[in-house]
Each structure stands twice: as C-alpha cells, then as structure tokens.
C-alpha cells in the first residue's frame, strides 16, 4: 500500500464522491462524515508523499504498469508535492466548515453538493499529480465542470455569470487542447518528459512556438490573467458563499501550477525564456494585471467583489514572479502560490460567515460588524494583514522574494507595481476595518425608550456557527505558521523545485 500512495490520493475522493451520490438517496446523515474521512485520507497521503519526496527525490508512479511514454505516469517532484499538500489541506478545511451552512443553503441537494465538492477536489489533485499532457486536459475539464455547476446554483446573477464562465473556460481549455495537438503532430508523444526529450531535435520550429503560445493562452484564460479575467469577479461574487471559498483559493493557483509545469518540464527553460521573446510581454501583462486589479478593487462597494479583484492582482504577482526568470522570482512565485491559497481561503471563509449571518455583503451593511462577529473579523484582520504583507504573516515573505527577484532582474516596473498594490491593499483593508468599527448610531436614535431591547440587540453578538469558526481560526493560525516557517519551506522544498542552473 505504501507504494501506491499517489493513486490513493486521487482514487479515494473519487470513490467517496460516488458513494456519497449513492448513499444520498437512502441516508442523509452520514454524508458529511464520509466526505471528511475522504478528505483526511487524501491530505495525510499527500503529506506522506511529500515526506517521501524530501528524502528520495522525484516519485514516478506508473498507471496500469506501462512504462512511459506508452502509459500514463504520475510524476511528483518538490513543486507539485508541496502544492498537493496545500490543496488537499485547503479543501479539507473548507469542507470542515460546511456542515451547518450547507444544510441551510443546499438543503435537499446536499448529496450532490458533497459529491461535486469531492469531484472538484479529485480533479485538482489529479492535475497536480499527472505527468501526461493530455491527461492534464481531462482533469482540467473535470475540475472546471464541477466548478461551473457549483457556481451556477447561486441566487441573483449566478446563472448568467456561470454561463459566461462556461463559455470563456471552454475556450481556454480548447486552446490548451489545440496546443497539445500541435505538439503531438511534431513529436508523436504525449508524456511531458518525453516531449522535452524530443523537442531539441526539431527546434527551431514555428509549430512549437505556436503550440507554446496556444497552451499559455488557454491557461491564461483559465487563471484569469488580465485582460482575460472578465469571468472571475462575477463568478466568485454571486456563487454560494461556501463555494466561493472552495473555488477561489484553488482554481487559479492550480492553473498557475499548470503553467509552471508546462513551461519548465515540457518546453524547458532554455526554450521558454531564452530562445523566444515572450518573457517581456508576459511580464508587462502581469504588471498591468496587478495595477488594474488593485485600481478596480478600490471602486468596489461589495466585499466579495473587492476580494475577487484582489485575486486578479495576486495572479499578476505569481505570473510576473515566474516570468522574471531568476531564482528569487521563481521562489517567490511558488511560495506565493502556497501562501495565496491559504490567505484567500481565510478571507473568503470569513466573508462566507458574514454573508451567512447578514445575508448581505455590501459595505453599507457591514457597519458595527466587529461587535457582532468579533472572532470572524479577527480572522479577517489576520488575512488582510497577510495580503498587505506584514510580518510574521506569510504574505510578507513571498512578497519579499518577489521584490528581491524584481530588483535582481532589473525590472523596476514590477517592483513599483508590487509596492503600489501593497499600498492599495492597505487602503482597502483599513477601509473595511473602519467601516466595521463604526457603530450604527442613526438607528438607535429613532427607537423609543420601550424599545430598549432592540438597542441592545443591534450590538449583540451574532457570531458565525461554531463549526465554521473552528476552521476559520485554524486557517488564521496556519497563516502565521506558514509565515514563521517560510525560510524552512524555501530551503528544503522550493529550492529543489526550481531547475538547478537558474541563478
């Protein structure tokens, strides 16, 4: 069983999803526990796998017993080992918080909700494990399809935002598929390391360049890099609250991982960074993404929409950091993938708690919220400080690496954009905190003395349910732990994820 851990990571949530669907028609109470068991098994298997990679290097797992390139293989090295642990942990933490809220929001469709949740997690874990280019497409599609369904069930503008997401996401995945088709046409293989072996003998080639651009464009649409980001704000704002705290931290980060994998393992560093001139245009796209994301976030009046535009800016950080091309920049990008997943989970889960209690997330409704939900807002403060980049939260360390990388590469526009975005985050979050402390005086004045009860009610606690608070607090603690151990993570894991010859 020990050797088959990679297969267990992805097979257990899949089988659990099927079991949940079957069981839901008969018995409704066990669904949550089944899903939690599957999540825990998956997380512990990923942690075990990461420890194995740290001691013995890259793990290759052959499916069906066939050697590559004739069969599909899992190829897990330091990069995806680390992200596997974080993705399964984020999914598990969010799942732990769904118990009461899911019953209220989805009621009669609880079984399909958990099944779609587990299938979404399976798709993401599969993307992280695979070493085959076409298999990546199939898993991207399964994660996307379940994402579309989960997002589409919100109220209000959810169906039209969901359909917009479907149309754009399908173009993205189809462009990626076309790129893989071009690669297959000229190399004859689908395995990632095998393509990398064959490519040097056929370069320079227009077809390979076109394949690279198509694959990257497809992934850019999926990760919502400006200007292809238009699906993201609406989709995340109007989706049900616990769905946005699942989809928002994970989808874009895993697509960014796919970009890392395609660029470093399939097309190799020499081709992507040195032979062709795409490095600077993509870097400028990232800089524009950071600036525009921050500016548009300033204009928002709803909490979740503001957070969604902050995500657009964060995507710019990671894409820009990677395409700087030097060791600090790439370390910063990889570390930021890990940190951003946890930060985004933190703030979106807090927003989910707020929406659950108040039914409204516009800033005008958030006055006095620090009195009503102190615990939730404390977690939101930690998350906000992490986005701003205050030590010892983890956001500071990844931003530090990105800044160092930008300075070392001489890209001062990128450094300026990072600093600008940090300042904008300060404004955004401190504005939120100020609104939260402001007491609703206007209401109390109109109450007569006999309505003394309602006066006290307007500032009594209406805290989030307990089983949402526990994962919230755990996430905030995780942010601090990740920050304190950033140095360890970089020297023991991230360093080996980047090819050795990069200076």
């Amino acid at each position: 069983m020990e050797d088959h851990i990679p297969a267990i990571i992805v097979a257990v949530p899949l089988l659990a999803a099927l079991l949940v669907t079957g069981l839901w028609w008969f018995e409704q109470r066990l669904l949550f526990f089944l899903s939690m068991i599957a999540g825990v098994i998956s997380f512990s298997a990923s942690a075990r796998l990461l420890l194995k990679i740290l001691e013995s290097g890259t793990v290759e797992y052959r499916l069906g017993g066939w050697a590559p390139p004739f069969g599909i293989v899992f190829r897990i090295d330091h990069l995806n080992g680390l992200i596997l642990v974080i993705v399964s942990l984020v999914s598990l933490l969010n799942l732990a918080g769904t118990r009461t809220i899911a019953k209220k929001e989805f009621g009669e469709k609880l079984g399909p909700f958990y099944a779609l949740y587990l299938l979404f997690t399976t798709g993401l874990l599969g993307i992280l494990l695979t070493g085959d280019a076409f298999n990546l497409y199939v898993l991207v599609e399964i994660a996307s399809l379940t994402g579309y369904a989960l997002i589409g069930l919100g109220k209000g503008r959810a169906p039209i935002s969901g359909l917009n997401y479907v149309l754009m996401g399908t173009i993205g995945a189809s462009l990626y598929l076309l790129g893989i088709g071009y690669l297959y046409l000229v190399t004859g293989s689908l395995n990632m390391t095998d393509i990398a072996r064959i490519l040097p003998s056929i370069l320079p080639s227009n077809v390979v360049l076109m394949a690279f651009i198509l694959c990257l464009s497809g992934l850019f649409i999926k990760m919502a890099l400006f200007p292809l980001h238009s699906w993201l704000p609406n989709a995340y704002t109007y989706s049900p609250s616990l769905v946005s705290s699942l989809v928002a931290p994970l989808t874009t980060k895993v697509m960014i991982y796919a970009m890392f994998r395609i660029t470093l393992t399939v097309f190799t560093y020499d081709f992507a960074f040195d032979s062709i001139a795409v490095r600077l245009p993509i870097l400028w796209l990232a800089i524009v993404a950071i600036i525009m994301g921050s500016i548009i976030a300033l204009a928002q009046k709803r909490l979740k929409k503001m957070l969604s535009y902050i995500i657009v800016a964060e995507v710019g950080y990671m894409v820009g950091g990677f395409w700087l091309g030097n060791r600090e920049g790439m370390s910063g990008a990889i570390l930021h993938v890990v940190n951003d997943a946890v930060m985004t989970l933190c703030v979106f889960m807090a927003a989910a708690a707020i929406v659950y209690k108040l039914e409204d997330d516009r800033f005008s409704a958030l006055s006095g919220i620090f009195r009503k939900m102190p615990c939730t807002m404390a977690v939101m403060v930690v998350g906000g400080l992490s986005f701003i980049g205050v030590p010892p939260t983890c956001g500071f360390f990844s931003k530090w690496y990105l800044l160092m990388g930008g300075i070392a590469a001489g890209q001062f526009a990128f450094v300026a954009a990072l600093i600008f975005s940090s300042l904008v985050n300060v404004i955004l979050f401190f504005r939120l905190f100020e609104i939260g402390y402001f007491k609703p005086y206007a209401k109390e004045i109109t109450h007569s003395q006999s309505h003394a009860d309602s006066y006290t009610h307007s500032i009594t606690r209406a805290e989030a349910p307990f089983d949402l608070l526990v994962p919230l607090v755990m996430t905030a603690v995780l942010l601090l732990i990740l920050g304190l151990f950033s140095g360890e993570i970089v020297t023991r894991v991230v360093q080996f994820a980047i090819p050795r010859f990069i200076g």
Partner: protein
Amino acid sequence: MESIESLIIAKYNYWAVIVLLMVGLYAMITKKNLVKKIIGMNIFQTAIILFYVSIGAKKGATIPIIMHGPDHSSHAVQAMDYINPLPHVLMLTAIVVSVATLGVALALALNIYSQYGTLEEDEISEKIMKSEPG
C-alpha cells in the same frame, strides 16, 4: 515551395479546421442569443476534434482492428497497414467532455430563461440594470 496544387490537396484538411475554428469563435463573440453562443462553443470544440482525427490518417491503411487469420495464428503486424489509433482514443475523451460541457451550459441556460424570461443577452443586461440600482 512545391507546386501550389499539391500543397492545396495535401493540406486542405488543416485549412478546413482553421475555418471552422474561426466560425465557432465568431459565433461566440458576436451573437447575442445565448443558445447561439453555446452552439458556437460546440463548433469550436468540434473543429479541434476534427484536427486530431485528421492527424491520424494514413494513405492506404485500414482501420486499427487487427485482422485474424482463420487459424488465429499471430502473423507479423505492420504498423503501416493500420491508421494511427492514438488520436481516435484521445478524441473519444474530447467528444465526451464536449457533450458534458454542452449539458451543463444548457442547464444554466434553462435556469437563466426561468429567471429572466428571455435568452437575448442585451435584454438580460437591461433587466439586471433595472433590478440593481447603482
């Protein structure tokens, strides 16, 4: 550059695929009706499927099912006699994925219709503007 006619005959499958891709993309961008956009998405995916399948063709080869002799003896199998099976396998998956996406898109379109009463994008935007002041 070889003679133009051999170029056209030898590569017109790729050009047909490119034309279909552009038709699908044009439909997705310019049409206002949501169902027409969904059809454009389907045309886009179908064009990519055709591209892959046309990669696998070989002149003078037959379908990739190994023909048995009457005594079930295994005689040498020549790769040149059979067309490439791998693109067909990949496209079985892609067809299933496109059908699944179509199903989800139509389900969302049904929800939109029951919510707004129309499937034209500009009318839906108007209704959203009216119901959400500011």
